[in-house]
């Protein structure tokens, strides 16, 4: 899919902006704190209706404003020309797709895939297991409504059981919540096993393209605990009940699963060089891109937040050529990209406003400011 036009109103520091994109790649250049990433954040919001930077929708609304709005016009493989309107209010969000209100996230997920490349991605290899779990859950849930439902049910049952443990509730009530917890755990782990197997091939292929080196990259699920099926999970939670009651929380389960990224079967976190880890992180994101395309048949929109500048020239070139020309890339940076990386439409960003400065035809309506009806 291609993002043809994006309109923002009261989104973070952007009071109003309407940007039309003609080419396949856009570059937003400006000093730090001007609003470059805010624009990417808005474009990335369409994927799963959440921000890649924060879980709190309220901070996306400009200070003192009742609501923020984002409208996107896409050229879409499955739906043709599609207009998406998202309104964010402190109490929640509303989404319309071609005038039809979206009421179920499960129906919506996967329609508008985006992949964000961010300088924070290094943490995927080096940071805590929670970050890797979130990467995996987001990737799988975006393509599979059943996985999303299992994930939601698992967390709901877990929250219930933990609330009971905190209160010191008797075993019978705990057992009542272990049943849906076990059913969801079995489904969740089966989904993760299958999903990681599917992703591993994409990771290996992407790593080979970027690193241009001989090592084979891989990814493995490291389950906290495993059980054969829902009945076995029930038994496992029942067996752990005594210890959980002491700790007042559910100590073991899929909420403690981790992923391990490997190079030649060895953990990249411990054995990978700085450069190898950088390549691996890019490969993880590229794997998301090809995984999304394979599952949904839609070419994801790539959002690169200040990452091009961090790469050495060789890796940057290989990264760039591995993207292919079909995909739309929207990138940010504090300085313009090298000329060898193709023809960008360039927008200068200052204080939350945008000015098209070069590349592609300057349409009359490329940048406009003023009030707008959504």
């Amino acid at each position, binding site marked *: 899919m291609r993002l043809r036009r994006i309109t923002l109103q009261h989104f973070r520091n952007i009071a109003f902006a309407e940007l039309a994109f003609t080419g396949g790649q856009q570059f937003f250049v400006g000093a730090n704190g001007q609003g470059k990433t805010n624009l990417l954040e808005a474009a990335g919001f369409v994927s799963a209706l959440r921000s890649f930077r924060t879980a709190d929708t309220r901070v996306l609304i400009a200070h003192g404003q009742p609501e923020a709005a984002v409208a996107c016009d896409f050229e879409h493989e499955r739906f043709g020309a599609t207009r998406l309107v998202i309104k964010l209010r402190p109490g929640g969000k509303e989404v319309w797709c071609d005038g039809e209100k979206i009421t179920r996230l499960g*129906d919506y997920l996967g329609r508008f895939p985006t992949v964000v490349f961010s300088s924070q991605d290094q943490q995927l290899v080096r940071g805590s297991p929670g970050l890797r779990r979130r990467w995996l859950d987001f990737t799988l849930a975006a393509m599979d*409504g059943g996985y999303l439902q299992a994930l939601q049910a698992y967390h*709901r*049952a877990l929250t219930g059981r933990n609330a009971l443990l905190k*209160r010191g509730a008797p075993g*019978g*009530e705990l*057992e009542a*919540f272990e049943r849906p917890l076990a059913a969801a755990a079995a489904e969740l782990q089966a989904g993760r096993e299958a999903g990681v197997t599917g992703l591993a091939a994409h990771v290996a292929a992407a790593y080979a393209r970027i690193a241009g080196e001989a090592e084979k990259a891989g990814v493995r699920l490291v389950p906290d605990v495993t059980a054969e099926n829902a009945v076995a999970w029930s038994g496992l939670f029942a067996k752990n009940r005594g210890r959980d009651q002491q700790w007042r929380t559910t100590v073991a389960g899929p909420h403690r699963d981790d992923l391990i990224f490997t190079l030649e079967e060895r953990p990249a976190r411990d054995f990978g060089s700085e450069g190898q880890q950088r390549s691996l992180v890019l490969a993880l994101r590229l794997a998301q891109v090809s995984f999304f395309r394979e599952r949904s048949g839609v070419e994801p929109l790539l959002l690169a937040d200040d990452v091009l500048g961090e790469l050495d020239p060789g890796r940057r070139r290989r990264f760039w050529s591995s993207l292919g020309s079909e995909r739309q890339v929207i990138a940010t940076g504090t300085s313009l990209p090298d000329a060898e990386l193709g023809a960008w439409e360039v927008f200068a960003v200052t204080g939350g406003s945008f000015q098209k400065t070069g590349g592609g035809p300057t349409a009359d309506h490329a940048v406009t400011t003023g009030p707008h009806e959504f």
Partner: protein
Amino acid sequence: MTPAFERLQQHLKQLPGVGFRSAERIALHLLVEKPAKLATLVQALEEAARSVRRCTRCGNLAEGDRCAICADERRDHRIVCVVEHVPDLVALERSGAYRGGYHVLHGKLSPIHGVGPGDLNLAPLLQRVQAGEVRELILALSNDVEGEATCHYLTQHLPPDGAVKVTRIGFGLPSGGGVLYADSVTLKSALDARREYS
């Protein structure tokens, strides 16, 4: 607005589904536009508050000891359909497909919201089961984590001899709906709950 008007508006606003503006409209309507309605409304409220209570057997709304359904001798009270709330019962009745009895729990287990077994209308149901009055329990609680947990909690407290048959209502495709428009999760449960075609 006067202080008395604002007090009324405050009270109306606390009702479910009524916001600030609706509360204002209702108050204006009753006090200014159609004051004649007020007396009958107050009377109806007082009367209902005096007479409407929970059926001692099943928890449905009743004006005496027993609700109209429990009092209906033509129904098969050995089959009991367990629901969360009175409107669930009303919906099932509207279908006209069911001629057994009911039991209304008035909620479901929800530790997140502090709802435990003591807050549910469970004891009268278990008493009916222990007294041997029940042959089948149909669990018509919602198809979510709390609903499933409540079903499980309830079945734990049934006599283990298997004298009571326990069934769960099916979850699947809406009537008249095609497979094409159903979401994947609904299709999955519809497939899980498929049955022999005869």
